[in-house]
């Protein structure tokens, strides 16, 4: 029994309840949220150290042993995801508190945000397929509320698409669960790992494919990404930032977890690699065609999901290590970029490239804050994206997957092109339209300090992950070893007595 594992799920749910009770005071609500998320970050650090030191940590709710009871498991991959998610949730919360506007003053924002945190953490920590479903549903339900909180027409419309697609994916997830249960008679992931290995190849491939489709919708894989760039940009900036940083990554986490633990080798490698390459290429081409900062960044999410899936598709320790490293780097950098995008909108009054311009003169700080994560995303040394891409491409070269090497390098160049399009359009060149609003040339900061501080921290994070990438990469390799050979995971879950 290890209480640390339950805290990241229980604390935010309790916090959400308290937040409703103190709904009259916005100040008290903020204090509750910040306390809870800081506590979770501390728990995540403790968990990370413990997991890295002693191996997989398992706890069974109510003392029922696996596979009967509900198990919570943390291995190196889930621990690092938990920590990254906790830091992002805290940074974006501070940004949301700092941003003026109607949404953050909504009475429900803080409690819904905490429910989202609980759902994300539950998805990372669960050792049970059905609870993965519950965790993802919790997170999605909170995200439905957050995306439509403003109640504006465009939000309602894009929110509608988002809810319908997600609900469809959930129904498919449940159907996949039903098939898995019918075939294997258990939903505990560690137990499934053993049982599924004994099933006929066709059944395994069908189940693995179904789960890839289900989580592919959530993660935005080719050709299931079409809902993402339409729904994300309409939400308020902090909400878009946390969606971009975390929600799709929960899908990636679920893909990597199910494919490595339950269905290793069930799907042909060429299939996963082709999906990865197509996701990369279509995402970046979509980004180039857009004219809005938030829409370009949303298409980029898709493109970079392809890199993570490529790491999974290589199915080597080096490939998986690259995928883990890339996921962590991408969460930090993408959240940072969206926060800067929100600041651009706040300062310039629009997020459309044709209406913005010359902001390098009025807001030089923003120009730097955008440039650092943008170059990192494109993979320019010495930033974090360089280490992440190098590790993935190195793994692909070692595996002689030349088409993957070529497409990932080409997509990096296109990424640089699309991001420089934003940077030149917003900061360097003048606006295209004569009636564009010229931002006020003030000497003051281009936004409230609470909005700037988290953005600066995340940009510094991109530099730090790049310069000090060694320890994180070593950790990723250790996490990948655990993913590649899940016997320790299975033994830890099933071996724990009552």
């Amino acid at each position: 029994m290890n209480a640390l594992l339950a805290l990241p799920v229980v604390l935010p749910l309790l916090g959400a309840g308290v937040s409703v009770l103190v709904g009259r005071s916005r100040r008290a609500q903020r204090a509750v949220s910040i306390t809870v998320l800081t506590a979770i970050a501390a728990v995540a650090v403790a968990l990370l150290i413990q997991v890295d030191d002693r191996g997989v940590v398992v706890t069974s709710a109510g003392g029922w042993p696996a596979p009967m009871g509900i198990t919570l498991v943390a291995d190196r991959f889930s621990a690092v995801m938990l920590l990254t998610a906790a830091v992002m949730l805290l940074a974006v919360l501070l940004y949301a508190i700092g941003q003026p506007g109607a949404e953050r003053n909504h009475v429900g924002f803080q409690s819904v945000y905490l429910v989202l945190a609980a759902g994300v953490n539950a998805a990372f920590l669960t050792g049970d397929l059905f609870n993965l479903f519950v965790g993802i549903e919790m997170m999605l339900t909170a995200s439905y509320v957050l995306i439509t909180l403003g109640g504006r027409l465009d939000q309602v419309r894009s929110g509608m698409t988002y809810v319908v697609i997600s609900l469809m994916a959930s129904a498919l997830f449940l159907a996949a669960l039903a098939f898995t249960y019918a075939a294997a008679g258990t939903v505990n992931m560690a137990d499934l790992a053993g049982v599924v290995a004994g099933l006929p190849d066709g059944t395994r491939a069908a189940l693995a494919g179904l789960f890839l489709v289900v989580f592919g919708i959530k993660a935005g894989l080719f050709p299931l990404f079409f809902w993402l760039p339409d729904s994300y940009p309409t939400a308020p900036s902090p909400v878009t930032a946390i969606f971009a940083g975390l929600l799709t990554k929960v899908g990636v986490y679920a893909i990597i977890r199910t494919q490595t633990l339950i269905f290793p080798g069930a799907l042909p490698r060429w299939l996963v690699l082709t999906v990865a390459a197509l996701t990369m290429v279509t995402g970046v081409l979509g980004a180039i065609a857009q004219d809005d900062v938030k829409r370009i960044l949303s298409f980029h999410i898709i493109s970079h999901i392809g890199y993570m899936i490529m790491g999974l598709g290589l199915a080597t320790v080096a490939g998986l290590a690259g995928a883990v490293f890339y996921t962590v780097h991408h969460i930090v950098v993408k959240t940072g970029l969206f926060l800067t995008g929100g600041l651009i909108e706040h300062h310039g009054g629009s997020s459309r490239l044709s209406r913005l311009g010359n902001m390098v003169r009025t807001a030089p700080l923003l120009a730097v804050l955008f440039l650092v994560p943008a170059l990192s995303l494109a993979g320019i040394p010495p930033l974090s994206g360089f280490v992440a891409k190098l590790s993935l491409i190195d793994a692909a070269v070692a595996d002689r997957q030349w088409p993957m090497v070529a497409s990932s390098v080409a997509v990096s160049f296109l990424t640089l092109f699309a991001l420089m399009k934003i940077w030149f359009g917003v900061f360097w060149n003048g606006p295209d339209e004569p009636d564009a609003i010229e931002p006020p040339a003030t000497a003051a900061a281009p936004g409230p300090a609470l909005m700037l501080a988290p953005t600066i921290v995340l940009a510094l994070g991109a530099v730090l992950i790049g310069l000090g990438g060694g320890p994180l990469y070593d950790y990723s390799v250790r996490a990948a070893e655990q993913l590649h050979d899940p016997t320790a995971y299975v033994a830890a879950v099933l071996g724990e007595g009552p």
Partner: protein
Amino acid sequence: MSLAIVGLIGVLFAAGTYLLLQRTITRIIIGLGLIGNGTNLLLMATGGRPGATPVAGGGSEVTDPVPQALVLTAIVIGFAITSFLLALAWRNWTLDGNDEVEDDISDRRIARAERDTEADGAGASDERGDGA
């Protein structure tokens, strides 16, 4: 698992998919409801033959209780989200007065670009329209 239940699941999924492809939001929601019910039935069907008791000791044949517990959770989640969707549809109706899914932004831009090139070809040099 009886053939009638398998057939019913198939019909629910087929009808749900058909409704999901409509343009009216209410039909889409009903379609999702049908698919959700089909999935719940599928989950139930994995638990064994209907009619047997779900608790050990009730007879020789025992129905697996786990799928029933799973279905209960799934029904609650489905119910909550369907009500949320209905609220969204109502909000859309009060704001806009219609019940239709609108075109994709990129689709509209492409359609406008095509119209513009046709107009250019006909000789009527029109100003480039403002993007959506």
